[in-house]
Each structure stands twice: as C-alpha cells, then as structure tokens.
C-alpha cells in the first residue's frame, strides 16, 4: 500500500501541478509531495513492510537505502526550488517564448511537473524488483530529467541536454541488450517464459549460462555505467551538471547517478549469486580507478566550479565502484560512500546555485571573497570542500576509510597507492579552486542571503556532519544489510 503510494503520489502531483494556476499553491504542492514522500520513507524505516515474495514492487535494504537518499535530496531540492523559481520569476531573461511543441505550458508549472515525475521514476527504480521494469524506470528518469536540464533554454543547455540524451540513450540501449542477454542466460526450458523477477533470477543464478551472463554483465556495466557517470562513459555528466539549474544538478548528482548505481547493484546481486564476483571485481576496480584518474585530471586546473563538482561526482561514483570491486567489507564502505557523497555533493550544488545567483558567473576566478559577501554560503562551501574530500568529522571520510582498510587487507597495495594518489590530487585541485573563491576579496560587497536558499544546504550539511561524528545504529544496520546483499553473505 505504502509502496504504491510512494509511486502514485508523485505522478499525481505532476499532473496536478500542470493544472494548478497559482504559483504559491503549486509550490506548496511540490514541497508537500516531497514532505509526504519523505515521511512515508521514514515510515518504512520505522515499520518495515515485509516483502511480498511475488510482488514486482517491494522494499529491501538496498532499495530502502537509495530510496531514502533520493527522498531526502528531493525534499531539500524542493525546498530550494521555491527560492530558485522565485528568482527565475523575478529575472525574466530566463523566460523565453512559449511557442514550441513540448513546452507549451507555463514554465514553472512544467518545471514542477517534471520534478515530480522525476521523483516518481526514481522511486520506481528503488522499489521495483523486475529487471525489465527497472530498465523502463531508469530510461524514464533519463527522459524526465532531459527537460529539467534544458530548463534555461539557451544554446549551452541545449547542447548539454542533447549530449545527455544521446549518450544516456545509447547507454540505456546497451543495458536493454543486457536484459536480453540476461534472459538468454536464464533460459532453463526453451518453452517456458523466463522471469526477469529479481528473486527468481537470484535463485536461478548458479545454473545460468556463464558466457551469456558475463556478457550481460558487461553490457549492463557499460549501459548503466554511462548513466552512473563512470569514466570513460561519463562525458555527458560535466556538461549536464553545469548547464542544469543547480537544484537539478543536485538531484542529478545525488539521486540520479545513485539510482543508476542501484540498477547496477541489482545486476551485481545476480553476479554474486552466480558466484561470479571474481569476474566482476577487476572491471569495477579498473573502471573505478579510471574514473578517479579522469576526475583528478579534470579537477586540476578546472576553471568552472560547477564542472569541478561534476567531476567530483565522477570521482565519487568511481570510489563506490572501486569499493564494490574490492569486495568484503569495502562493499559496506561503498554504501557509506554513496550515501554520504550524495548528501554532501547535493549540498555543494545547492550552494553553487547561491553563488551563481550572487556572482552570475560559473568561472571560479569571477568569484572571490565569498566569506565577506555571503558568509553562510561561504561557510557551507568550505565545509563542503572538506566534507567531500573526505576530511573528518564528515561522513565521506568513513566511506573512504573502510574501502581503504579492505583494499589493504586484501593486499591490493598498488591499487591502494593509486587510490590515495588520486585522492590527493583531487584534494589539491578542489581546495585550490574552492578556497580561492571563499577567501580574499577586496571588493566590499555584502549580499543578503535568502534563508530559503540556505535551509536545504544547511540541513544536508548537518546530516553529513552527523554521519561523520557517529554512524547511527539504524543507518549502519541498514547499510550492512545492503552490503550483505551484495557480498552473498
């Protein structure tokens, strides 16, 4: 019941927001949807719903973990969207003529509708237990976000949207092929339909056809990997994150990439069940390190701070993948990493939105003296820098730490050294840019900071700090459960 509600409410809200005329009501509707969604997810924490063994939709630990992150980030973004939309309404240069085919309605209504649809599709990703449906849901997230990225409707956002669409569609097509391969691998009796129901697949995994399963994994990996943003499949990511409105970037980075990661983890569950985790591990390790390397290369000397954050997302997805490859307790590290980096990264994107609103430039050398001009945002920005690069007392530290511990324990010293090296380079690159932005500044400008623009980043920052000071038992239990699903334990 509650599961169905989680899906239907966002879709209903999407429809409603198209119909509602007054902006204020619609804004309240979006926030309300987010709040209801969040509270229902919280309800799932308190009263877990036992999974119906045959239901396509169910909540398991892995799903709940990603669902919670998504719901939380969506709530914060929805809060932030009020600030953003108000500002857009006051700055008419964002408006353009309304004569095109798709966007034949008022701007804000459309934006809210797409946001709600996005939430619905992401919830579907987290909840569904059928591979075909999972694929559909992932494709749906791609399609629903495209208009959001295109929201600013200028040449650059157009270019970004186009790249996003084409690359993700190609990726998703490959994932579809992966689905077919998986079907073939799972064939037992030629005349009986193969179920793509996750528990069935896991049950049947040990007797699957090895070659097909392996090939299916590789297709899924490349397919969903494109969406996750693993290098060298990540090329849409910096463009889309830069050109989208900041709150959309926050959702892209924190929720969308994570949902795709969840899809890949579903595949990984089958691989583990089939006893092929040895086959997958070096793929994860190599691609994970490669993602970190690519992030390091592009973060160093990056002049555009939103792009820098985008590459940091590539890095973090790389770290998560690396952790999966290392296996053992590092999987738990990956889970920690996913949760924490999503929270911090979203916070940073929201703050980046504030910066963009204040300084009207995405290049870092146009932004100086934030501490003077916008002290709270600057504080969050600098705290975010240290949080995202893995300094205690923020949560990201523990994710990296657990992964490193296991990397050493399994004797992968070269990988560990590379890991540390890339982290160091990324730290140098990010700190140089972000600190220069925060500090200095001879101009004595002082801007008023809108509380609406600060509430969401503050919430996210506090959560990250909390997760760094102590990992609550409930959270660590859930993450351990999720990790166990991926380690065959």
């Amino acid at each position, binding site marked *: 019941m509650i599961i169905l509600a989680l899906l239907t409410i966002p879709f209903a809200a999407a429809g409603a927001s198209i119909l509602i005329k007054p902006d204020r009501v619609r804004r309240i509707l979006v926030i309300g949807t987010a709040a209801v969604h969040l509270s229902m997810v919280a309800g799932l924490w308190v009263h877990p719903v036992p999974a119906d063994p045959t239901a396509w939709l169910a909540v398991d630990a892995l799903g709940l973990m990603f669902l919670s992150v998504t719901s939380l980030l969506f709530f914060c973004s929805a809060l932030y969207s009020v600030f953003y939309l108000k500002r857009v309404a006051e700055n008419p240069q964002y408006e353009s003529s309304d004569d095109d085919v798709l966007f034949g309605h008022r701007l804000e209504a459309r934006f809210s509708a797409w946001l709600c649809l996005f939430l619905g599709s992401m919830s579907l990703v987290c909840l569904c237990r059928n591979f*075909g449906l999972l694929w559909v849901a992932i494709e*749906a997230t791609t399609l629903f976000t495209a208009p959001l990225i*295109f929201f600013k409707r200028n040449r650059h956002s157009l*270019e*970004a949207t186009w790249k996003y669409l084409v690359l993700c569609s190609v990726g998703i097509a490959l994932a*579809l092929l992966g689905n077919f391969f998986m*079907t073939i691998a799972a*064939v037992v009796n*030629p005349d009986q339909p193969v179920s793509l129901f996750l528990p069935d697949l896991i049950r049947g995994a040990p007797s699957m056809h090895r070659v097909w399963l392996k090939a299916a994994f590789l297709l899924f990996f490349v397919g969903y990997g494109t969406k996750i943003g693993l290098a060298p499949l990540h090329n849409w990511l910096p463009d889309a994150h830069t050109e989208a409105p900041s709150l959309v970037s926050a959702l892209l980075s924190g929720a969308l990439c994570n949902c795709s990661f969840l899809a890949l983890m579903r595949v990984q569950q089958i691989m583990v069940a089939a006893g092929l985790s040895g086959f997958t591990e070096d793929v994860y390790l190599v691609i994970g390190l490669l993602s970190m390397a690519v992030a390091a290369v592009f973060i160093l000397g*990056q002049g555009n701070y939103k792009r820098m954050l985008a590459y940091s997302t590539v890095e973090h997805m790389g770290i998560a993948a690396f952790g999966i490859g290392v296996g053992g307790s590092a999987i738990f590290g990956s889970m920690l990493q996913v949760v924490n980096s999503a929270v911090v990264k979203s916070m940073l994107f929201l703050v980046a939105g504030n910066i963009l609103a204040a300084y009207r430039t995405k290049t870092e050398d146009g932004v100086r003296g934030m501490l003077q001009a916008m002290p709270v945002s600057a504080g969050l920005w600098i705290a975010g820098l240290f949080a995202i690069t893995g300094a205690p007392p923020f949560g990201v530290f523990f994710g990296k730490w657990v992964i490193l511990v296991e990397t050493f324990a399994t004797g992968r010293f070269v990988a560990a050294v590379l890991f540390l090296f890339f982290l160091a380079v990324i730290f140098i690159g990010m700190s140089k840019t972000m600190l220069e932005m925060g500090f200095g500044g001879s101009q004595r400008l002082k801007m008023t900071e809108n509380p609406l623009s600060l509430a969401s980043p503050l919430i996210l920052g506090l959560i990250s700090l909390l997760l760094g000071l102590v990992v609550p038992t409930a959270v660590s239990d859930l993450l351990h459960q999720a990790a166990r699903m991926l380690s065959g334990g």
Partner: protein
Amino acid sequence: MAFPMDSLLVCVVLIDLALLAVNRLVTLVRIAALQGVLIGGLSLYVGGADAASILTATASLVLKGIVFPFMLMRAMREASINREVEPYIGLNLSIIFGLALLALSLWLGFKLPLPVAAASTLIVPVALFTILAGLFLIVGRLKALTQIVGYLVLENGIYTFSLAISHQSSWIVELGILLDVFVAVFIMGVITYQINREFDHIDTNQLSDLKD
C-alpha cells in the same frame, strides 16, 4: 523455416550496409524505416500466435515503419535541414568499417552460442552487427538527425536480438520498452528542432562549446 528467416536476416545486414553508404538524408530515414518494418514483420513471423505477441509486434511495426519516419521527416521539413548526410567518416571508408564490424559481429556471435534453439543461428550476429552499425552511424555522422537514425538502428538491432528470445520474455516489459523508445525519439526530435532553431543547422560539431 530456416531459409526465409535467414534470407530476411541477410536483408537486414544489407540494409545496414546501405545505411552506411547513403548520402541523402531522406533516403537514410526511409531505409531505416524499411528496416523497422522488416524486423517488425520478422517478429510477427517468429512470435507466438497469442494476442500479446501480436500486439507488441504490430505496435513496433507501426512505430518504426510509420510514426518515426513521419516524425523525422516533419522535423526535417520544419527545420529546413540540409539534405546531405555530411559524413564525419567518408562513405567508402564507412563501408570498409562496416565490413570489419560485420566480421567482428560474426566472431562474437560464434563466441556466444544460443543455449536455446532459435529461429535462426544468424540472429545473434545480425543483431550485433545492426547494433554496431547503429553506433557507427552515431559516431561517424555529423548531423543530429543522423544520430537519431543511428539510435533507431541500434534499437532495431536490439529488437532483432529479442527475436531469439521471443518465447521467453514478458510482453508487458516489451510494451514498456517500446513506450520508452517512443518517448526518447520524440524528445530527441524536439531537441533536434530546437537545435536547428538555435544553430541554423544540425551539425553536431557545432555542439562542442562545453569542454575542458
């Protein structure tokens, strides 16, 4: 049953090669539509007689043979797109690449023997080749529209592949897939239209402002 099936599959391969060699945009779209019809027909031919299979196969046939070409043609007209394909990799070279990809798909196809008896042993290599040809179209052509066509060809390849497992998959999922592809192409078409408005023509080389 093998003979007509095999010969139709060979036709698909020939169409793929033709796609690589074509210079005119309209022809490209039409050939792609032809391929869609062909594969839709194949799935009708191979699939079961139950209503669901017929429904999905017909839907795919209608979409790929009629709706998509119509949409693309309309986009071309409205955006007054230049009729040349504007290859990034020359047409002759494309065919040579295409043959190499064909060889690669055959090799991969033999590496991946179907565990179930399928309508034809050629299905896997042909499907792979169609997928690769689609990717090649995306990589090797400059216009946004050609990339949509490439994407469609890629989808065709995947659909061809599904012929191998038509008995095993669930029709609801397939419908969902079709729906997604439809929306994807629809949005792409809209974006193409937008691109054209912004940039005057749909050479994606123009779309390279965002870089490091």
